[in-house]
């Protein structure tokens, strides 16, 4: 058993940290306030290889392991949750479905530019009436000659409306089978007539990531855009979500780490009753708890990534990591604001933003409740 990182992973962490601190941190507050998608930073992230880490080199990616992928998301998210989710959603949800289930032609056509970071990808699962209950999908795809005709609405789709958004993979009902609805995955290129992209949502946090509602109105794509087997959509997205959950877990670790660092810094600086507040156990114990939980969240996340790197199914580990890390991030953000007192409630201090960025971690990629449901099933309950 070896908990150490390789020299390659350590160097990668350092380079991403340097990049995030120099190129993102000075602009994070302003970007958040304006809600502007930073194309220039995303383009630099692509140059570093951050938009295709776990995709093999032959398909335009880096061929990195999942642990390295987590380190990358963690370090970006330590400075910017918005860019953390941009990177994680693009990779886990944009690239992975095509990598895992695409045929060679689909990989050449879509995965290569995605993994190189030349375009952003997204995944459309959630609908107005199909959230946790993903099987309730109402979007339909009907085969008309050589084309799928798609009608329906997808909500909360990350990376779906930027200038560089290239492709969205959606789940759609393609018919009926013995189990009821036959759900399949279909690749929809941006620019396809009938794909309508709504203005960005006004979100509580993750404010300079791009999240939108997509509508499909008689949207026609070629028959070959079916991704994976017809009717295999549900099974496929569950595997995609495993990867997505590792991504959100890593994002949570990075955000929680930032909360810890800001809290310790402030606890050393802020003097009340004649001494730094960090000398008071009411504050220092909060920091100690945060320290412990961040470390445990990181361990759970890397463990899940490690299991994935062994080529085994990691549904259980990804769920544990996502649940624990996201709730750790929320607790850490709450404690960080508490430690900062009134200053934590104003945007002059980054913990205010961290708090707003944290809540969604307990919701996206399967809510905390859904994660507990997954775990109860593993327990046979």
């Amino acid at each position, binding site marked *: 058993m070896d908990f150490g990182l390789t*020299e*390659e992973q*350590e*160097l990668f962490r350092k*380079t991403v940290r*340097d990049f995030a601190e120099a190129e993102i941190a000075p602009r994070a507050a302003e970007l958040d306030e304006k809600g502007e998608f930073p194309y220039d930073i995303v383009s630099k992230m692509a*140059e570093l290889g951050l938009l295709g880490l776990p995709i093999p080199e032959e398909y335009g990616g880096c061929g990195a392991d999942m642990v390295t992928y987590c380190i*990358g998301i963690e370090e970006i998210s330590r400075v910017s949750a918005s860019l953390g989710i941009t990177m994680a959603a693009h990779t886990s949800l944009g690239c992975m479905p095509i990598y895992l289930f695409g045929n060679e032609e689909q990989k050449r056509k879509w995965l290569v530019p995605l993994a190189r970071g030349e375009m952003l990808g997204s995944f459309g699962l959630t609908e107005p009436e199909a959230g946790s209950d993903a099987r309730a999908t109402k979007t339909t795809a009907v085969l008309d000659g050589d084309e799928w005709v798609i009608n329906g609405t997808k909500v909360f789709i990350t990376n779906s409306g930027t200038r560089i958004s290239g492709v969205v993979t959606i789940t759609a009902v393609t018919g009926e089978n013995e189990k009821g609805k036959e759900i399949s995955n279909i690749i929809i290129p941006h620019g396809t007539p009938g794909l309508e992209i709504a203005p960005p949502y006004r979100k509580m946090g993750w404010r300079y990531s791009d999240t939108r509602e997509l509508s499909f109105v008689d949207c026609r794509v070629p028959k070959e855009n079916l991704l994976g087997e017809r009717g295999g959509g549900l099974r496929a997205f569950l595997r995609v979500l495993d990867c997505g959950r590792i991504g959100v877990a890593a994002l949570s670790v990075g955000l929680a780490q930032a909360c810890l660092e800001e809290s310790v*810094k402030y606890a050393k600086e802020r003097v009340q009753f004649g001494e730094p507040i960090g000398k008071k156990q009411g504050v220092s114990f909060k920091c100690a708890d945060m320290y412990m939980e961040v470390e445990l969240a990181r361990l759970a996340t890397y463990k899940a990534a490690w299991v994935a790197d062994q080529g085994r199914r990691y549904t259980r580990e990804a769920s544990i990591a996502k649940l624990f890390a996201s709730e750790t991030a929320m607790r850490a953000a709450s404690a960080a604001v508490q430690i900062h007192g009134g200053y934590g409630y104003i945007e002059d201090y980054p913990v205010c933003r961290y708090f707003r960025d944290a809540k969604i971690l307990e919701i996206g990629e399967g809510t905390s409740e859904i994660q507990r449901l997954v775990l109860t099933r593993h327990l046979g309950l």
Partner: protein
Amino acid sequence: MNIVVCVKQVPDTSDPDTEVHIDSTGRGVDQSKFSFVINEADNYGVEEAILLKEKHGGEVVIVSIGPEAANQVIRMALAKGGDRAIRLEDEAFAFSDVYATAKILQSAIKDIEFDVVMTGCMASDDGYAATGQTLAQLLGVPHAAYVKSVEVIDEKTLKVGRELEGGLLEMSEIKMPCVLTIQTGINEPRYASFKGIREASKKEIKIMDLAATGLSSDEVGENGSLSVLKGYSMPEVGELAEILEGDASETSTKLATILKEKGLV
């Protein structure tokens, strides 16, 4: 165009936890809690060398004196585009001054067919700002210090701009082979990409100890130095502080005047 870049691992002074404490010998600083980075000016040297290589071809060799932990700084330079590296390590190298340090570097560089040797113009820890110049002397080649621009004129000649007071650029031509000490700001150092990092792990870092340098123990360390480090002392606190008094507009005017007088803005 073959370029050697000398790099040094130094304490990360941007790290808020980097507090300087003199160690028990009095001749060193307690480094146990430091995190280390590449010396800032050296980082610009690495970038300049890689830019020249990308334009004119050739090889970039990274040379560093330091412990095994310095491998991280070296690997990063390789990840950005350096081709191979030499790391010099021996207990006998401790307490080398500028002259002894330059001799150690020269021992590794003399067998390389180089066109240019680059060093940072100054190390952020000891601040001698003389290693490059001394090295040039030992290698028997010309040098230019505080170089802020480099242009290749022909196979034998470089046009270099040296940064003088107030940002004035002094342009001159220098024959190769030569040594350039690189000023910060000459370029925009890149970040290593993941692929670069992966390739760097396959590149050679050759280790040279005292025996491999061909130097004797009398030529390095304290014995081989012209100046000997005697000790450190912490600055006295408080006496030079000037407290500005008055309301905000008065104090800000006074502060602006002082900063301007001192040439800080």
